[in-house]
């Protein structure tokens, strides 16, 4: 019994990690339908940013988020404006361009750091907590809580604030949103910036858990797409749950089948869901078509 609880806990915590990493991608791909393969690199930059903040200013990585978020927001806006705005409505070119961006960012960091693995420690993410019969790493628990808070915050933002509604309006129907007085390009730019900033936040919170290398971003990007698609495009809650689906799938297949096969199992499940229910498990039918229309 303890064993299953352990695996369950592991899956949920892992789900928290995936949900946190994917919440930014959900906004970018799920809502405004821009295919961004460099999203994992934003997470990596967040990690290295936390490292820089600790080395230069002695900041705890959680505190370093205060600096990382605006920096990545700015980077996201710049990336959108320069690279993705001209490619609006052309998802395949977006894939190429963001792949190129992935290579550029990853190797720029490699050139700058030489490739050594770095660690960042936080005074908060130390040790583990006992929840009943199960041991839970403090750092991971923090990530899970953060994922929940951020998801809730994003849902609130999209539903309750004018800006958030503008984002949803643009995703639903660009032309109509324009008619309603929404500055479409500004909405896209800001959304992308927010998505990048959220990825950076994930990086800061994950930094105490991993030894960071320039290649670590690429390990996150495909699972992140799996999360967003599995959970349901356009649905913030769906992406949150998608994280747990991915986390639990990996945890159970890793423990009961073989850790070397869990990746394969996850992606087979992903392909099956994609084929059988392309709108994801919690999305509305036809959700996958939204936003890919080419219009004004």
């Amino acid at each position, binding site marked *: 019994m303890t064993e299953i609880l352990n695996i369950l806990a592991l899956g949920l915590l892992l789900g928290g990690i995936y949900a946190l990493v994917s919440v930014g991608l959900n906004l970018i791909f799920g809502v405004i339908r821009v*295919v961004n393969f460099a999203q994992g690199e934003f997470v990596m930059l967040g990690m290295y940013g936390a490292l820089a903040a600790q080395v230069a200013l002695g900041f705890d990585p959680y505190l370093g988020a205060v600096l990382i978020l605006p920096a990545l927001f700015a980077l996201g806006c710049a990336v959108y404006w320069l*690279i993705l705005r*001209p*490619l609006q*409505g*052309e*998802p*395949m*070119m*977006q*894939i*190429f*361009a963001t*792949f*190129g*961006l*992935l*290579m*550029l*960012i*990853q*190797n*720029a960091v*490699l*050139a700058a750091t*030489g*490739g050594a693995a770095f660690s960042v420690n936080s005074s908060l993410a130390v040790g583990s907590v006992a929840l009943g019969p199960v041991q839970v790493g403090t750092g991971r628990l923090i990530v899970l809580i953060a994922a929940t808070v951020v998801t809730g915050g994003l849902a609130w933002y999209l539903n309750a604030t004018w800006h958030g509604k503008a984002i949803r309006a643009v995703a639903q129907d660009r032309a109509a949103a324009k008619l309603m007085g929404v500055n479409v390009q500004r909405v896209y730019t800001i959304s992308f910036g927010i998505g990048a900033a959220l990825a950076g936040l994930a990086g800061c919170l994950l930094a105490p858990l991993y030894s960071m290398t*320039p290649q670590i971003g690429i390990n996150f990007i*495909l699972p992140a*797409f*799996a999360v967003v*698609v599995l959970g349901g495009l356009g649905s913030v809650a769906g992406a949150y749950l998608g994280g747990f689906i991915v986390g639990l799938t990996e945890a159970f297949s890793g423990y009961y089948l*073989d850790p*070397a*096969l869990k*990746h*394969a199992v996850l*992606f*087979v499940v*992903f*392909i099956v869901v*994609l*084929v059988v229910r*392309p709108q994801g498990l919690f999305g509305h039918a036809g959700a*996958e*078509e939204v936003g*890919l*229309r*080419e*219009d004004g």
Partner: protein
Amino acid sequence: MKMDEIRPTSGPAQHAAVAAAARTLRHEAPLLAGVLAALLALTWAFAGDSFALNILATAFLFGGVATAWNVIGGLGGQFSLGHSVFFALGAYMTANLVLHAGLSPWLALVPAAALAAGAAALVSWPVFRLRGPFFAIATLAMTEVMLSLSTYFDALTGGAQGLSIPFRRGFWNMIFVDRMSYALLMLGFLAVCLLAMIVVTRSRLGYRLRAVRDNEGAAQAAGIDVLRVKLAGMAISAALTGVGGALFLMQVRVVDPPALYSLFDVGVKVALLALIGGIGTTYGPMLGALLVIPLESWLRAELGGALPGMNLAALGLVLILTALFLRRGIVGALRGLRRPAILARRPRPAGEAAR
């Protein structure tokens, strides 16, 4: 829509199709012959320079695979980023036949192509229901699955350590000491791929593929069996890619999952080459390869040593700039220069067509 109408198997329709193909070839033959003659001359010009010949051989090989990709990616508009699966299957099949059945690699090319085509049919059927970026992401997921499985189930793949073909010189072993032979071998492969691309482009399948690419809904409404058309295109593309994988195996003689399934070296690379050269054009991917492969090699030699990774960063920048400014590729840009008044048709992959 019956299979017959895509590829007639009997009667007057078949005669007409053969006649059409013959006309095609006569039409296109001069240009193809010219291009191949030019490449042959280029190869001969570097005779004795193994370094250059090796790069040319690699460029021809990946030019061929990119041309194969173009059948489904450019003509059909289905941007697969998972062609490394077919590449790997071709390599593994050939390796097993050579190592365990003592077969000549030349003969093994046929089963390699068949396996790849079979895999394409099997795997594409569910995945072709997806549009645009979802299709691309699904093909990436497929690559990951195959990478994991190839590493784990090592009976036929040699697992993580891979397979290696021992050196045994000879034409029938497809193992040569001099680089000229490899360059000529790969040029032969490129020629076959170009020929296939030309034949498909001018065939009914080619027209149907383009119809599907430009507007899938309308094509369906016009009575085209979209799934069949995509499958046929994918099977041809995969078969040629599988042969490419087999030739890669014979050139390098050491293959393992990270090399075969590599996104940057195979999966995304062939799409990249087609993009830079001109997606959907016949000679575009070949041009892309002839440009990028030597460039890559030069970047790796010049930049790779001093600051680690700068060569790949430069390549990433090239990719970004191409996607932004050179979407039609070099061939497309050249066409635009020649006839600036006529807007060259920009290939629009399925998924972004108006609804």
